[in-house]
Protein backbone atom coordinates (compact mmCIF):
# COMPACT_ATOMS: atom_id res chain seq x y z
CA UNK A 1 0.00 0.00 0.00
CA UNK A 2 2.51 2.69 0.99
CA UNK A 3 4.48 1.97 -2.16
CA UNK A 4 1.46 2.56 -4.33
CA UNK A 5 0.84 5.82 -2.53
CA UNK A 6 4.46 6.79 -3.04
CA UNK A 7 3.94 6.28 -6.72
CA UNK A 8 1.03 8.69 -6.86
CA UNK A 9 3.48 11.57 -6.57
CA UNK A 10 5.32 11.21 -9.86
CA UNK A 11 2.21 10.16 -11.75
CA UNK A 12 0.34 13.28 -10.70
CA UNK A 13 3.11 15.64 -11.82
CA UNK A 14 3.31 13.83 -15.14
CA UNK A 15 -0.44 14.01 -15.58
CA UNK A 16 -0.46 17.73 -14.80
CA UNK A 17 2.23 18.54 -17.34
CA UNK A 18 0.60 16.20 -19.84
CA UNK A 19 -2.65 18.10 -19.48
CA UNK A 20 -0.90 21.45 -19.74
CA UNK A 21 0.63 20.31 -23.01
CA UNK A 22 -2.37 18.55 -24.50
CA UNK A 23 -5.18 20.81 -23.34
CA UNK A 24 -4.30 23.83 -25.52
CA UNK A 25 -4.12 21.58 -28.58
CA UNK A 26 -7.42 19.87 -27.79
CA UNK A 27 -8.99 23.27 -27.06
CA UNK A 28 -8.01 24.63 -30.47
CA UNK A 29 -9.43 21.58 -32.18
CA UNK A 30 -12.72 21.69 -30.26
CA UNK A 31 -13.04 25.46 -30.79
CA UNK A 32 -12.68 24.87 -34.50
CA UNK A 33 -16.21 23.42 -34.44
CA UNK A 34 -17.78 26.29 -32.48
CA UNK A 35 -19.62 29.37 -33.62
CA UNK A 36 -18.06 32.80 -33.11
CA UNK A 37 -20.42 33.53 -30.21
CA UNK A 38 -19.54 30.27 -28.50
CA UNK A 39 -15.83 30.96 -28.88
CA UNK A 40 -16.13 34.46 -27.51
CA UNK A 41 -18.44 33.76 -24.59
CA UNK A 42 -17.73 30.20 -23.46
CA UNK A 43 -14.03 29.44 -23.90
CA UNK A 44 -14.39 26.15 -22.01
CA UNK A 45 -17.76 25.18 -23.46
CA UNK A 46 -18.38 22.47 -26.02
CA UNK A 47 -19.87 23.32 -29.40
CA UNK A 48 -23.66 23.00 -29.54
CA UNK A 49 -23.27 21.47 -32.98
CA UNK A 50 -20.28 20.40 -35.05
CA UNK A 51 -19.83 23.23 -37.52
CA UNK A 52 -17.72 21.49 -40.11
CA UNK A 53 -18.11 24.41 -42.49
CA UNK A 54 -15.62 26.38 -40.36
CA UNK A 55 -12.90 24.16 -41.74
CA UNK A 56 -14.06 24.64 -45.29
CA UNK A 57 -14.09 28.42 -44.86
CA UNK A 58 -10.64 28.40 -43.29
CA UNK A 59 -9.32 26.24 -46.13
CA UNK A 60 -10.70 28.40 -48.94
CA UNK A 61 -11.57 31.92 -47.72
CA UNK A 62 -8.86 31.89 -45.06
CA UNK A 63 -6.44 30.66 -47.77
CA UNK A 64 -5.16 27.96 -45.41
CA UNK A 65 -5.32 25.54 -48.34
CA UNK A 66 -3.10 27.81 -50.38
CA UNK A 67 -0.63 28.34 -47.53
CA UNK A 68 -0.60 24.64 -46.79
CA UNK A 69 0.24 23.88 -50.40
CA UNK A 70 2.95 26.56 -50.43
CA UNK A 71 4.57 25.08 -47.33
CA UNK A 72 4.37 21.57 -48.76
CA UNK A 73 5.95 22.62 -52.06
CA UNK A 74 8.71 24.64 -50.43
CA UNK A 75 9.58 21.96 -47.89
CA UNK A 76 9.56 19.04 -50.30
CA UNK A 77 11.93 20.79 -52.71
CA UNK A 78 14.15 22.42 -50.09
CA UNK A 79 14.51 19.20 -48.11
CA UNK A 80 15.40 17.18 -51.21
CA UNK A 81 17.89 19.83 -52.27
CA UNK A 82 19.37 20.06 -48.77
CA UNK A 83 19.89 16.32 -48.56
CA UNK A 84 21.32 16.07 -52.06
CA UNK A 85 23.75 18.98 -51.78
CA UNK A 86 24.56 18.22 -48.15
CA UNK A 87 25.20 14.51 -48.66
CA UNK A 88 27.35 14.97 -51.78
CA UNK A 89 29.45 17.73 -50.22
CA UNK A 90 29.80 15.83 -46.95
CA UNK A 91 30.84 12.67 -48.80
CA UNK A 92 33.46 14.50 -50.86
CA UNK A 93 34.87 16.13 -47.74
CA UNK A 94 34.79 12.97 -45.64
CA UNK A 95 36.21 10.42 -48.05
CA UNK A 96 38.60 12.32 -50.35
CA UNK A 97 41.96 13.94 -49.64
CA UNK A 98 42.61 17.10 -51.63
CA UNK A 99 44.18 20.50 -51.02
CA UNK A 100 41.68 22.86 -49.37
CA UNK A 101 39.57 20.07 -47.91
CA UNK A 102 39.85 21.35 -44.33
CA UNK A 103 39.28 24.95 -45.43
CA UNK A 104 36.04 24.07 -47.22
CA UNK A 105 34.92 21.89 -44.33
CA UNK A 106 35.41 24.64 -41.78
CA UNK A 107 33.78 27.21 -44.06
CA UNK A 108 30.66 25.06 -44.06
CA UNK A 109 30.75 24.14 -40.39
CA UNK A 110 31.61 27.68 -39.30
CA UNK A 111 28.20 28.76 -40.61
CA UNK A 112 26.65 27.17 -37.53
CA UNK A 113 28.21 29.90 -35.36
CA UNK A 114 26.50 32.82 -37.09
CA UNK A 115 22.99 34.04 -36.28
CA UNK A 116 20.77 34.42 -39.36
CA UNK A 117 19.99 37.97 -38.20
CA UNK A 118 23.51 39.00 -39.19
CA UNK A 119 22.91 38.02 -42.81
CA UNK A 120 19.36 39.30 -43.04
CA UNK A 121 19.77 42.69 -44.71
CA UNK A 122 22.28 41.64 -47.38
CA UNK A 123 20.41 38.37 -47.91
CA UNK A 124 17.26 40.32 -48.70
CA UNK A 125 19.12 42.18 -51.47
CA UNK A 126 20.91 39.09 -52.78
CA UNK A 127 17.54 37.36 -53.13
CA UNK A 128 16.03 40.50 -54.64
CA UNK A 129 18.77 40.81 -57.24
CA UNK A 130 18.37 37.15 -58.19
CA UNK A 131 14.73 37.93 -58.93
CA UNK A 132 13.69 35.44 -56.24
CA UNK A 133 12.09 37.85 -53.79
CA UNK A 134 8.48 36.92 -52.99
CA UNK A 135 8.82 33.57 -54.72
CA UNK A 136 8.71 30.01 -53.45
CA UNK A 137 11.96 29.01 -55.25
CA UNK A 138 13.65 31.86 -53.37
CA UNK A 139 12.61 30.34 -50.06
CA UNK A 140 13.63 26.85 -51.18
CA UNK A 141 17.16 27.84 -52.06
CA UNK A 142 17.64 30.01 -48.96
CA UNK A 143 16.33 27.24 -46.67
CA UNK A 144 18.73 24.85 -48.36
CA UNK A 145 21.70 27.20 -48.03
CA UNK A 146 21.15 27.77 -44.31
CA UNK A 147 20.63 24.04 -43.65
CA UNK A 148 23.95 23.08 -45.23
CA UNK A 149 26.31 23.80 -42.29
CA UNK A 150 24.70 21.33 -39.93
CA UNK A 151 23.95 18.80 -42.67
CA UNK A 152 27.56 18.78 -43.89
CA UNK A 153 28.86 18.63 -40.33
CA UNK A 154 26.62 15.74 -39.34
CA UNK A 155 26.86 13.69 -42.53
CA UNK A 156 30.61 14.04 -43.02
CA UNK A 157 31.09 12.68 -39.49
CA UNK A 158 28.75 9.86 -40.47
CA UNK A 159 30.48 9.04 -43.76
CA UNK A 160 33.82 8.96 -41.95
CA UNK A 161 32.60 6.18 -39.70
CA UNK A 162 31.45 3.93 -42.53
CA UNK A 163 33.78 0.93 -43.02
CA UNK A 164 36.27 1.22 -45.89
CA UNK A 165 36.20 -2.54 -46.57
CA UNK A 166 32.85 -2.40 -48.33
CA UNK A 167 34.00 0.49 -50.52
CA UNK A 168 37.20 -1.37 -51.40
CA UNK A 169 35.31 -4.52 -52.31
CA UNK A 170 32.98 -2.52 -54.54
CA UNK A 171 35.93 -0.80 -56.21
CA UNK A 172 37.59 -4.15 -56.94
CA UNK A 173 34.32 -5.23 -58.54
CA UNK A 174 34.72 -2.27 -60.90
CA UNK A 175 32.40 0.17 -59.21
CA UNK A 176 33.05 3.75 -60.39
CA UNK A 177 33.23 6.66 -57.95
CA UNK A 178 29.74 7.98 -58.69
CA UNK A 179 28.09 4.57 -58.51
CA UNK A 180 30.05 4.00 -55.32
CA UNK A 181 28.34 6.98 -53.74
CA UNK A 182 24.80 6.37 -54.92
CA UNK A 183 24.71 2.59 -54.72
CA UNK A 184 27.05 1.74 -51.88
CA UNK A 185 27.62 4.68 -49.57
CA UNK A 186 24.19 6.33 -49.54
CA UNK A 187 22.36 3.12 -48.63
CA UNK A 188 24.88 2.48 -45.86
CA UNK A 189 24.39 6.01 -44.55
CA UNK A 190 20.61 5.64 -44.30
CA UNK A 191 20.27 5.98 -40.51
CA UNK A 192 22.29 9.21 -40.59
CA UNK A 193 20.34 10.53 -43.56
CA UNK A 194 17.04 9.88 -41.81
CA UNK A 195 18.16 11.65 -38.62
CA UNK A 196 19.48 14.71 -40.38
CA UNK A 197 16.51 14.69 -42.77
CA UNK A 198 14.01 14.86 -39.91
CA UNK A 199 16.11 17.50 -38.19
CA UNK A 200 16.16 19.63 -41.34
CA UNK A 201 12.49 19.09 -42.12
CA UNK A 202 11.46 20.32 -38.68
CA UNK A 203 14.00 23.12 -38.76
CA UNK A 204 12.72 24.39 -42.10
CA UNK A 205 9.09 23.93 -41.07
CA UNK A 206 9.94 25.96 -37.98
CA UNK A 207 11.23 28.90 -40.02
CA UNK A 208 9.46 32.18 -39.55
CA UNK A 209 12.11 34.90 -39.82
CA UNK A 210 13.17 34.01 -43.38
CA UNK A 211 9.67 33.84 -44.93
CA UNK A 212 8.59 37.02 -43.13
CA UNK A 213 11.52 38.90 -44.64
CA UNK A 214 11.70 37.25 -48.05
CA UNK A 215 8.01 36.74 -48.90
CA UNK A 216 5.68 39.66 -48.38
CA UNK A 217 3.24 38.72 -51.14
CA UNK A 218 0.22 37.11 -49.52
CA UNK A 219 -0.33 34.47 -52.23
CA UNK A 220 3.07 32.99 -51.48
CA UNK A 221 2.86 32.93 -47.67
CA UNK A 222 3.91 29.71 -46.00
CA UNK A 223 1.57 28.18 -43.44
CA UNK A 224 3.07 29.67 -40.27
CA UNK A 225 3.14 33.11 -41.83
CA UNK A 226 -0.39 32.81 -43.21
CA UNK A 227 -1.77 31.79 -39.83
CA UNK A 228 -0.04 34.68 -38.09
CA UNK A 229 -1.57 37.04 -40.65
CA UNK A 230 -4.96 35.37 -40.25
CA UNK A 231 -4.73 35.82 -36.47
CA UNK A 232 -4.07 39.55 -36.90
CA UNK A 233 -6.93 39.96 -39.36
CA UNK A 234 -9.42 37.90 -37.39
CA UNK A 235 -8.80 40.16 -34.42
CA UNK A 236 -10.29 43.02 -36.42
CA UNK A 237 -12.96 41.08 -38.25
CA UNK A 238 -14.15 38.88 -35.40
CA UNK A 239 -14.27 35.67 -37.47
CA UNK A 240 -12.80 33.54 -34.73
CA UNK A 241 -14.21 30.20 -35.82
CA UNK A 242 -12.28 30.41 -39.05
CA UNK A 243 -9.05 31.12 -37.18
CA UNK A 244 -9.47 28.15 -34.84
CA UNK A 245 -10.40 25.85 -37.69
CA UNK A 246 -7.34 27.09 -39.58
CA UNK A 247 -5.10 26.53 -36.56
CA UNK A 248 -6.45 22.98 -36.23
CA UNK A 249 -5.73 22.34 -39.89
CA UNK A 250 -2.16 23.49 -39.36
CA UNK A 251 -1.60 21.52 -36.16
CA UNK A 252 -3.38 18.21 -36.63
CA UNK A 253 -1.67 16.80 -39.75
CA UNK A 254 1.71 17.53 -38.19
CA UNK A 255 0.74 15.83 -34.94
CA UNK A 256 -0.56 12.79 -36.83
CA UNK A 257 2.68 12.44 -38.78
CA UNK A 258 4.59 12.93 -35.54
CA UNK A 259 2.56 10.29 -33.71
CA UNK A 260 3.35 7.77 -36.44
CA UNK A 261 7.06 8.54 -36.62
CA UNK A 262 7.59 9.72 -33.05
CA UNK A 263 10.60 7.53 -32.32
CA UNK A 264 12.46 8.70 -35.43
CA UNK A 265 11.45 12.31 -34.77
CA UNK A 266 12.66 12.23 -31.18
CA UNK A 267 15.97 10.63 -32.06
CA UNK A 268 16.46 12.90 -35.09
CA UNK A 269 15.95 16.03 -33.04
CA UNK A 270 17.99 14.92 -30.06
CA UNK A 271 20.83 13.95 -32.41
CA UNK A 272 20.76 17.51 -33.74
CA UNK A 273 21.09 18.84 -30.24
CA UNK A 274 24.47 17.23 -29.75
CA UNK A 275 26.21 19.39 -32.33
Amino acid at each position, binding site marked *: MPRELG*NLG*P*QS*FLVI*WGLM*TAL*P*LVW*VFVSGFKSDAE*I*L*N*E*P*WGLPAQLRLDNFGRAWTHGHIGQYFLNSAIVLSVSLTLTML*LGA*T*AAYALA*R*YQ*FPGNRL*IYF*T*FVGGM*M*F*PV*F*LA*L*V*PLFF*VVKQSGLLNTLPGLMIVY*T*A*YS*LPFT*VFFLSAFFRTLPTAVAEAAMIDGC*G*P*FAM*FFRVMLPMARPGLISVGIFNL*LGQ*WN*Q*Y*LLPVVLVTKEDNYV*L*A*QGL*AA*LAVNEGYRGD*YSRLFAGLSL*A*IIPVLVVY*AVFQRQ*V*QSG*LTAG*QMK
Partner: protein
Amino acid sequence: MRHGKYPLLAAFLLPALGVYATFVISPYAQAFFIAMTDWQGLSSNFNMVGFDNFTYLLKNSYLWNALWHNILLMLLLPVLTIALGLFLASMLNVGNGTGRVRGVRGSSFYKIIFFAPQVLSVAIIGVLWKEIYNPRSGLLNGGLRAIGLDGLAKTWLGDPDFAFWAVLAVMVWANAGFYVVLFGAAMQAIPRDIYEAAALDGTGRWATLWRITLPLVWDSVQVAWVYLAILALDGFALVQVMTRGGPNFSTDVVGQRMYDVAFGEFKFGQGSAIGVIMFFLTLSVTVVALRLTRRERIEFS
Protein backbone atom coordinates in the same frame (compact mmCIF):
# COMPACT_ATOMS: atom_id res chain seq x y z
CA MET B 1 40.33 6.03 -55.03
CA ARG B 2 42.76 6.28 -57.91
CA HIS B 3 40.70 6.76 -61.00
CA GLY B 4 40.25 10.51 -61.41
CA LYS B 5 38.78 11.91 -58.23
CA TYR B 6 38.47 15.46 -59.53
CA PRO B 7 35.33 14.99 -61.65
CA LEU B 8 33.54 13.65 -58.61
CA LEU B 9 34.90 16.37 -56.34
CA ALA B 10 33.75 19.06 -58.76
CA ALA B 11 30.30 17.53 -59.21
CA PHE B 12 29.82 16.94 -55.49
CA LEU B 13 31.27 20.12 -54.03
CA LEU B 14 30.66 22.94 -56.49
CA PRO B 15 26.83 23.00 -56.38
CA ALA B 16 26.76 23.05 -52.58
CA LEU B 17 29.58 25.59 -52.42
CA GLY B 18 27.90 27.81 -55.01
CA VAL B 19 24.60 27.95 -53.14
CA TYR B 20 26.38 28.37 -49.82
CA ALA B 21 28.69 31.13 -51.03
CA THR B 22 25.89 33.10 -52.68
CA PHE B 23 23.24 32.94 -49.99
CA VAL B 24 25.25 32.48 -46.79
CA ILE B 25 28.88 33.57 -46.98
CA SER B 26 28.40 36.62 -49.16
CA PRO B 27 25.53 38.04 -47.03
CA TYR B 28 27.49 37.43 -43.84
CA ALA B 29 30.51 39.25 -45.28
CA GLN B 30 28.45 42.12 -46.70
CA ALA B 31 26.66 42.62 -43.38
CA PHE B 32 29.80 43.96 -41.71
CA PHE B 33 30.26 46.43 -44.55
CA ILE B 34 26.63 47.60 -44.69
CA ALA B 35 26.77 48.14 -40.91
CA MET B 36 29.29 50.92 -41.60
CA THR B 37 26.99 52.80 -43.99
CA ASP B 38 23.89 54.95 -43.76
CA TRP B 39 22.29 52.96 -46.59
CA GLN B 40 18.50 53.29 -46.89
CA GLY B 41 18.23 50.58 -49.51
CA LEU B 42 16.15 52.47 -52.03
CA SER B 43 19.04 53.85 -54.05
CA SER B 44 22.62 52.84 -54.44
CA ASN B 45 23.63 56.07 -52.72
CA PHE B 46 25.18 55.61 -49.37
CA ASN B 47 27.91 57.12 -47.27
CA MET B 48 30.48 55.36 -45.20
CA VAL B 49 29.77 56.42 -41.65
CA GLY B 50 32.34 54.31 -39.84
CA PHE B 51 31.16 53.29 -36.41
CA ASP B 52 28.41 55.94 -36.23
CA ASN B 53 25.66 53.30 -36.34
CA PHE B 54 27.20 51.55 -33.38
CA THR B 55 27.74 54.67 -31.30
CA TYR B 56 24.17 55.69 -32.07
CA LEU B 57 22.84 52.29 -31.08
CA LEU B 58 24.85 52.17 -27.88
CA LYS B 59 23.03 55.32 -26.77
CA ASN B 60 19.67 54.01 -27.98
CA SER B 61 17.45 53.15 -25.04
CA TYR B 62 15.14 50.99 -27.19
CA LEU B 63 17.99 48.68 -28.10
CA TRP B 64 19.12 48.45 -24.47
CA ASN B 65 15.55 47.72 -23.43
CA ALA B 66 15.33 44.90 -25.98
CA LEU B 67 18.76 43.61 -24.98
CA TRP B 68 17.74 43.57 -21.34
CA HIS B 69 14.82 41.29 -22.24
CA ASN B 70 17.14 38.92 -24.08
CA ILE B 71 19.45 38.86 -21.06
CA LEU B 72 16.51 38.12 -18.76
CA LEU B 73 15.49 35.31 -21.11
CA MET B 74 19.04 34.02 -21.10
CA LEU B 75 19.05 33.87 -17.31
CA LEU B 76 15.55 32.46 -16.84
CA LEU B 77 14.74 30.27 -19.84
CA PRO B 78 17.57 27.73 -19.29
CA VAL B 79 17.01 27.50 -15.51
CA LEU B 80 13.26 26.99 -15.77
CA THR B 81 13.33 24.67 -18.77
CA ILE B 82 16.17 22.52 -17.46
CA ALA B 83 14.69 22.29 -13.96
CA LEU B 84 11.33 21.23 -15.35
CA GLY B 85 12.92 18.88 -17.87
CA LEU B 86 15.09 17.19 -15.23
CA PHE B 87 12.23 16.91 -12.79
CA LEU B 88 9.82 15.34 -15.26
CA ALA B 89 12.49 13.12 -16.81
CA SER B 90 13.43 11.76 -13.40
CA MET B 91 9.77 11.11 -12.64
CA LEU B 92 9.52 9.20 -15.89
CA ASN B 93 12.72 7.22 -15.75
CA VAL B 94 14.16 6.90 -12.29
CA GLY B 95 11.27 5.60 -10.23
CA ASN B 96 10.54 6.53 -6.68
CA GLY B 97 13.56 5.94 -4.51
CA THR B 98 11.88 3.14 -2.57
CA GLY B 99 13.75 0.33 -4.21
CA ARG B 100 11.71 0.22 -7.39
CA VAL B 101 14.02 1.70 -9.92
CA ARG B 102 12.14 1.44 -13.14
CA GLY B 103 10.17 4.31 -14.61
CA VAL B 104 6.46 4.81 -14.26
CA ARG B 105 3.86 3.04 -16.31
CA GLY B 106 3.00 4.62 -19.64
CA SER B 107 6.25 6.58 -19.77
CA SER B 108 6.48 6.40 -23.56
CA PHE B 109 2.96 7.80 -23.83
CA TYR B 110 3.91 10.75 -21.62
CA LYS B 111 7.00 11.32 -23.73
CA ILE B 112 4.92 11.51 -26.92
CA ILE B 113 2.65 14.14 -25.37
CA PHE B 114 5.42 16.19 -23.77
CA PHE B 115 7.46 16.29 -26.95
CA ALA B 116 4.56 17.29 -29.21
CA PRO B 117 5.04 21.12 -29.06
CA GLN B 118 8.48 20.56 -30.54
CA VAL B 119 7.00 19.55 -33.91
CA LEU B 120 4.76 22.62 -34.17
CA SER B 121 6.18 25.62 -35.95
CA VAL B 122 7.18 28.33 -33.43
CA ALA B 123 4.96 30.88 -35.17
CA ILE B 124 1.98 28.52 -34.91
CA ILE B 125 2.70 28.09 -31.19
CA GLY B 126 2.66 31.88 -31.02
CA VAL B 127 -0.77 32.10 -32.67
CA LEU B 128 -2.07 29.32 -30.41
CA TRP B 129 -0.95 31.05 -27.22
CA LYS B 130 -2.09 34.44 -28.39
CA GLU B 131 -5.58 32.91 -28.40
CA ILE B 132 -5.06 31.18 -25.05
CA TYR B 133 -4.10 34.54 -23.51
CA ASN B 134 -7.01 36.34 -25.17
CA PRO B 135 -8.60 38.33 -22.33
CA ARG B 136 -12.17 37.51 -23.31
CA SER B 137 -12.22 34.26 -25.26
CA GLY B 138 -8.96 32.71 -24.07
CA LEU B 139 -8.52 29.34 -22.42
CA LEU B 140 -6.60 30.85 -19.49
CA ASN B 141 -9.02 33.57 -18.40
CA GLY B 142 -11.95 31.27 -19.17
CA GLY B 143 -10.48 28.70 -16.81
CA LEU B 144 -9.77 31.25 -14.10
CA ARG B 145 -13.32 32.57 -14.28
CA ALA B 146 -14.74 29.06 -14.25
CA ILE B 147 -13.12 28.30 -10.91
CA GLY B 148 -14.12 31.67 -9.47
CA LEU B 149 -10.77 33.38 -9.69
CA ASP B 150 -12.07 36.27 -11.77
CA GLY B 151 -9.66 38.59 -10.02
CA LEU B 152 -6.69 36.77 -11.53
CA ALA B 153 -7.96 37.10 -15.10
CA LYS B 154 -5.72 39.58 -16.90
CA THR B 155 -5.24 41.04 -20.33
CA TRP B 156 -2.04 38.99 -20.33
CA LEU B 157 -0.38 40.16 -23.53
CA GLY B 158 -1.89 43.63 -23.30
CA ASP B 159 -0.47 44.42 -19.88
CA PRO B 160 3.16 45.62 -19.75
CA ASP B 161 3.50 44.05 -16.30
CA PHE B 162 2.59 40.55 -17.47
CA ALA B 163 3.33 40.32 -21.20
CA PHE B 164 7.01 39.42 -20.83
CA TRP B 165 6.28 36.66 -18.33
CA ALA B 166 3.49 35.37 -20.54
CA VAL B 167 5.94 35.08 -23.45
CA LEU B 168 8.56 33.42 -21.24
CA ALA B 169 5.97 30.87 -20.10
CA VAL B 170 5.24 29.96 -23.71
CA MET B 171 8.95 29.45 -24.37
CA VAL B 172 9.23 27.10 -21.39
CA TRP B 173 6.04 25.28 -22.46
CA ALA B 174 7.36 24.80 -25.98
CA ASN B 175 10.82 23.56 -24.99
CA ALA B 176 10.44 21.58 -21.75
CA GLY B 177 9.23 18.39 -23.44
CA PHE B 178 12.29 18.24 -25.64
CA TYR B 179 14.56 18.22 -22.60
CA VAL B 180 12.44 15.59 -20.88
CA VAL B 181 13.31 13.32 -23.79
CA LEU B 182 16.96 14.39 -23.95
CA PHE B 183 17.56 14.00 -20.20
CA GLY B 184 15.49 10.84 -20.23
CA ALA B 185 17.88 9.28 -22.73
CA ALA B 186 20.83 10.25 -20.52
CA MET B 187 19.12 8.82 -17.44
CA GLN B 188 18.45 5.54 -19.21
CA ALA B 189 22.20 5.16 -19.60
CA ILE B 190 22.78 5.28 -15.83
CA PRO B 191 23.27 1.77 -14.46
CA ARG B 192 20.30 0.65 -12.38
CA ASP B 193 22.44 -0.73 -9.57
CA ILE B 194 23.49 2.78 -8.57
CA TYR B 195 19.86 3.50 -7.77
CA GLU B 196 19.42 0.18 -6.04
CA ALA B 197 22.37 0.96 -3.83
CA ALA B 198 21.00 4.42 -3.09
CA ALA B 199 17.61 2.95 -2.27
CA LEU B 200 19.20 0.45 0.12
CA ASP B 201 20.92 3.35 1.85
CA GLY B 202 17.52 4.98 2.23
CA THR B 203 18.19 7.92 -0.07
CA GLY B 204 15.02 9.94 -0.64
CA ARG B 205 13.60 11.08 -3.95
CA TRP B 206 15.03 14.58 -3.88
CA ALA B 207 18.44 13.49 -2.70
CA THR B 208 18.49 10.88 -5.46
CA LEU B 209 17.69 13.48 -8.09
CA TRP B 210 20.08 16.09 -6.73
CA ARG B 211 23.04 13.93 -5.70
CA ILE B 212 22.93 10.97 -8.07
CA THR B 213 20.94 11.69 -11.22
CA LEU B 214 21.98 15.31 -11.77
CA PRO B 215 25.77 14.73 -11.58
CA LEU B 216 25.44 11.74 -13.91
CA VAL B 217 23.51 13.64 -16.60
CA TRP B 218 25.54 16.85 -16.16
CA ASP B 219 26.92 16.58 -19.70
CA SER B 220 23.43 16.79 -21.20
CA VAL B 221 22.54 19.63 -18.85
CA GLN B 222 25.49 21.66 -20.11
CA VAL B 223 24.54 21.06 -23.73
CA ALA B 224 20.98 22.08 -22.93
CA TRP B 225 22.21 25.21 -21.21
CA VAL B 226 24.20 26.39 -24.22
CA TYR B 227 21.40 25.61 -26.63
CA LEU B 228 18.74 27.38 -24.56
CA ALA B 229 20.95 30.41 -23.98
CA ILE B 230 21.39 30.79 -27.72
CA LEU B 231 17.65 30.30 -28.19
CA ALA B 232 17.07 33.08 -25.64
CA LEU B 233 19.13 35.46 -27.78
CA ASP B 234 16.56 35.01 -30.53
CA GLY B 235 12.91 34.86 -29.45
CA PHE B 236 11.90 36.74 -32.58
CA ALA B 237 9.22 34.44 -33.98
CA LEU B 238 7.19 34.18 -30.78
CA VAL B 239 7.47 37.88 -29.96
CA GLN B 240 6.66 38.97 -33.49
CA VAL B 241 3.55 36.79 -33.61
CA MET B 242 2.30 37.37 -30.08
CA THR B 243 3.09 41.00 -29.28
CA ARG B 244 5.36 42.60 -31.88
CA GLY B 245 7.48 43.72 -28.93
CA GLY B 246 4.64 45.53 -27.20
CA PRO B 247 2.80 46.65 -25.21
CA ASN B 248 5.00 49.68 -24.73
CA PHE B 249 8.11 47.66 -25.70
CA SER B 250 7.70 45.42 -22.66
CA THR B 251 8.41 42.25 -24.69
CA ASP B 252 10.80 43.73 -27.24
CA VAL B 253 13.83 41.59 -28.13
CA VAL B 254 16.90 42.47 -30.19
CA GLY B 255 15.70 40.42 -33.15
CA GLN B 256 12.41 42.30 -33.24
CA ARG B 257 14.30 45.60 -32.98
CA MET B 258 16.48 44.63 -35.91
CA TYR B 259 13.50 43.59 -37.99
CA ASP B 260 11.66 46.84 -37.26
CA VAL B 261 14.67 49.06 -37.93
CA ALA B 262 15.67 47.31 -41.17
CA PHE B 263 12.39 46.22 -42.70
CA GLY B 264 10.00 48.65 -41.02
CA GLU B 265 11.98 51.89 -41.12
CA PHE B 266 14.28 50.83 -43.99
CA LYS B 267 17.39 51.88 -42.08
CA PHE B 268 19.44 49.07 -43.53
CA GLY B 269 22.79 50.32 -42.25
CA GLN B 270 21.52 50.53 -38.70
CA GLY B 271 19.70 47.22 -39.01
CA SER B 272 22.89 45.52 -40.15
CA ALA B 273 24.72 47.07 -37.21
CA ILE B 274 22.20 45.44 -34.86
CA GLY B 275 22.86 42.17 -36.73
CA VAL B 276 26.59 42.60 -36.07
CA ILE B 277 25.87 43.22 -32.39
CA MET B 278 23.78 40.03 -32.31
CA PHE B 279 26.63 38.14 -33.89
CA PHE B 280 29.05 39.23 -31.19
CA LEU B 281 26.51 38.40 -28.50
CA THR B 282 26.03 34.89 -29.87
CA LEU B 283 29.78 34.48 -30.25
CA SER B 284 30.46 35.53 -26.66
CA VAL B 285 27.79 33.19 -25.32
CA THR B 286 29.34 30.33 -27.27
CA VAL B 287 32.87 31.17 -26.13
CA VAL B 288 31.84 31.54 -22.49
CA ALA B 289 29.90 28.30 -22.74
CA LEU B 290 32.85 26.43 -24.22
CA ARG B 291 35.15 27.72 -21.48
CA LEU B 292 32.74 26.86 -18.69
CA THR B 293 31.76 23.42 -19.89
CA ARG B 294 34.77 21.37 -19.04
CA ARG B 295 34.52 17.93 -20.47
CA GLU B 296 34.75 15.60 -17.52
CA ARG B 297 33.01 12.51 -18.66
CA ILE B 298 31.97 9.90 -16.17
CA GLU B 299 32.57 6.45 -17.57
CA PHE B 300 30.19 3.74 -16.50
CA SER B 301 32.20 0.58 -16.21
